[in-house]
């Protein structure tokens, strides 16, 4: 078929460009699955101990909202709980990144034209990107399954975990294939695809924490499918079939859309804009705001929805916890204080703060993309100082993250207040108390940008390390100082308990110091493309 001509060479090109980052990501996912399982098996050597541990988890709404229900009350079931949802999310994200990078990004940057003029069929770039993403997803699933076999657990369950990752990754490949046809911008396509992923997560979390018929809502979310594979529980490996079918349908739709648009454009045409700049577009801050506002609006809507959904779970938290003993254990496990509802919100808000940190990092990384594209040069050749330019983007990263924390604190507080005694007065301060850790992430990104501009995106790597420390550090028995490397380890226990005032002040000082170091090093270095 001529429309697929060139798929092979394009696939090899994509692999050649991305092989190391793909291998590193896949290995990180596999290592997480293995490490989590191995450590859990050490923790619960007997079935009785596992059943006792599981009893606490089954009734824990915060765990259920984040990770879904426990597949089974066995050590293997506990060991796979976090991997199911984290593995699904990360595999889906990897598939998204691969598909977008080799389709829309190539078109937007104009590199695709160079290739398109050769013997390359119209479908070839999408086919190559989808093939690379699918192979990566399959590799992740297979290696994860094999790594679990290495810990000596049941083979069906091990392959079911692989199936979880494959389900999530394949469907996300299809969703991204559609998203990149719709808009002509990389960012727009990212917004659509990640928005769909976020929606799938929220629907799944809402379904898992509701009672009765609400639970069936999870079938509307592809992350719900992934989780319902339920490794070491029901082991529904057959769920691979609807996932493959859904992916095929999504890809057919993407292919139809592909034939309705021109190279370089989206299905939604770019419209003419204003011939004159608005009054606000007159300063580096005005420019930074103009560039960043779309993303902040999108995040604001997303976080308001998530906040409302999380707040609403408050009504079932007390019902889920079956006995005072369980309640007591939960409190000890999460280090939280106050009522069970407080513990629940403390856990959720700290989790949502990681998302806000991701926003802050993405926003600060705009500095680097402006510089490497050569747009920083245009602005810095006018009477705009480096301080002003960097400061404008940094200010939006800082104020944007604070704003998102306010949004989620208020929206969760409002919806929780409607169904329980916990309200905005509890949740807003708790949300804002996570700000210092988020600001440290922003500061680290700015420092990387100043010191090692070509390595700026390593800011994402640092966030991943912080997340892994928080998720797996205790399980792996890491020492306190290692756990303390994550800024999210010093936040105290709001709501209900006390803020760790010394910790928060220290984090703010660290954020200021590294941010200032980033400013100074940027002022003293060359612009690099």
């Amino acid at each position, binding site marked *: 078929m001529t429309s697929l001509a060139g798929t092979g060479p394009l696939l090899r090109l994509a692999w050649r460009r991305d092989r190391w980052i793909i291998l590193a990501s896949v290995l990180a996912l596999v290592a997480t699955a293995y490490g989590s399982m191995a450590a859990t098996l050490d923790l619960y050597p007997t079935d009785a101990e596992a059943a006792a541990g599981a009893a606490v988890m089954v009734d824990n709404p915060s765990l259920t909202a984040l990770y879904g229900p426990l597949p089974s009350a066995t050590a293997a079931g506990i060991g796979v709980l976090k991997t199911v949802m984290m593995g699904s999310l990360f595999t889906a994200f990897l598939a998204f990144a691969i598909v977008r990078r080799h389709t829309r990004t190539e078109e937007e940057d104009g590199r695709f034209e160079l290739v398109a003029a050769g013997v390359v069929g119209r479908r070839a770039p999408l086919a190559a990107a989808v093939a690379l993403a699918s192979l990566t997803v399959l590799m992740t699933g297979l290696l994860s399954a094999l790594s679990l076999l290495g810990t000596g657990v049941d083979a069906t369950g091990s392959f079911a975990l692989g199936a979880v990752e494959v389900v999530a990754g394949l469907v996300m490949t299809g969703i991204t294939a559609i998203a990149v046809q719709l808009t002509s911008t990389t960012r727009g396509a990212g917004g659509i695809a990640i928005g769909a992923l976020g929606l799938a997560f929220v629907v799944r979390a809402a379904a898992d924490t509701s009672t009765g018929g609400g639970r069936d809502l999870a079938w509307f979310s592809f992350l719900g499918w992934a989780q319902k594979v339920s490794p070491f529980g029901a082991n529904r490996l057959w769920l691979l079939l609807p996932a493959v079918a859904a992916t095929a349908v999504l890809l057919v739709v993407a292919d139809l859309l592909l034939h309705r648009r021109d190279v370089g454009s989206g299905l939604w045409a770019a419209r*003419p804009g204003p011939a004159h700049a608005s009054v606000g577009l007159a300063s580096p801050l005005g420019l930074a705001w103009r560039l960043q506002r779309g993303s902040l609006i999108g995040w604001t809507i997303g976080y308001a929805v998530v906040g409302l959904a999380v707040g609403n779970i408050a009504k079932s938290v007390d019902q889920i916890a079956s006995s005072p003993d369980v309640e007591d254990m939960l409190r000890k496990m999460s280090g939280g204080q106050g009522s069970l509802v407080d513990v629940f919100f403390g856990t959720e808000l700290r989790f949502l703060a990681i998302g806000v940190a991701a926003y802050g990092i993405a926003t600060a990384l705009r500095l680097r993309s402006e510089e490497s594209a050569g747009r920083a040069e245009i602005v810095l050749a006018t009477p705009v100082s480096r301080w002003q330019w960097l400061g404008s983007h940094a200010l939006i990263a800082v104020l944007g993250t604070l704003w998102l924390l306010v949004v989620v604190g208020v929206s969760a507080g409002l919806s929780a207040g409607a169904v329980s005694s916990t309200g905005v007065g509890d949740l807003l301060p708790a949300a804002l108390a996570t700000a210092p850790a988020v600001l440290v992430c922003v500061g680290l990104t700015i420092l990387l940008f100043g010191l090692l501009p070509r390595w700026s995106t390593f800011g994402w790597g640092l966030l991943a390390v912080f997340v892994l420390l928080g998720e797996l550090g205790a399980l792996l028995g890491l020492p306190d100082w290692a756990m303390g490397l994550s800024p999210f380890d010093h936040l105290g226990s709001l709501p209900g308990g006390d803020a760790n005032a010394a910790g928060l002040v220290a984090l703010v000082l660290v954020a200021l110091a590294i941010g200032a170091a980033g400013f100074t090093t940027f002022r003293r270095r060359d612009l690099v493309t």
Partner: protein
Amino acid sequence: MAHVIEATGLIKKFGATTALDGLDLTVHEGEVHGFLGPNGAGKSTTIRVLLGLIRSDGGTVTLLGQDPWKHATELHRQLAYVPGDVVLWPNLTGGEVIDLLGRLRGGIDAGKRDKLLEAFELDPTKQGRSYSKGNRQKVALVAALASDVPLLVLDEPTSGLDPLMEKVFQEHLTQVRAEGRTVLLSSHILSEVETAADRVSIVRAGRIVDSGTLTDLRHLTRTSVTATLTRPVAQTEAAQWPGVDAARQDRERLVLSVESSAVGDVLQRLGSHGIEALICQPPTLEELFLSQYRDAIDPGQKVEEEVSA
């Protein structure tokens, strides 16, 4: 009074590659200075040092009497810059970018802006992502030309423009010079510098290999003389005449490359053979340029123009 641009012995290294290797450059007030060199010779690197976007590793440089690295912001009030590869924000229109850059430079003359948009036939309502290379360049050119600054730094400003637009650009360049403004115009397209520049500097492998007015540089090279003769001369014989560098036969015409000082003598010799038609051409910058590069192009010596990503 200090020159507008004064650089001596500039050195810039990017890792193992030496981009600038002792570059000297002097630009006088009110002149259009052509900055000539092939791709990768160090033109853009020099300009980035002059703008304080990167710091030189050695040598001294002053722009309008000040150090561009230390006083970048103040100096940028007095100049406008068009980069060699104009990249715009994909979601901002050309009009918005022109206004933004004008305002960042301290205000924009709306009347001038509109006239320039008309002259360059640029649609300001299109978004950055839908402009072609030439149109992106026009956006940066309009923004620069509309600003009221004493110094314009233009890095290969016409590389994406069609010949018609190049002519429009040349007209505006002439006007800028008439206003007494200084222009540093880098190019590897020699004809555009030839018509506009008062003085040129030729850069190769990070060094200036020649600098001066076009007249200064012309006497270093050959004049091309093409003659149709009633009593033809063998090209081997003509090649022996004093001052003749090379001779060849182009159908019935004899084409000679002659040292400028010997043109008179050669014409006398040609006259004795009966001239039917004669063309005498001063060397174009192309030829001048080639003569600078002809002898010493060392393929092993490769110089990066920009920091490689």
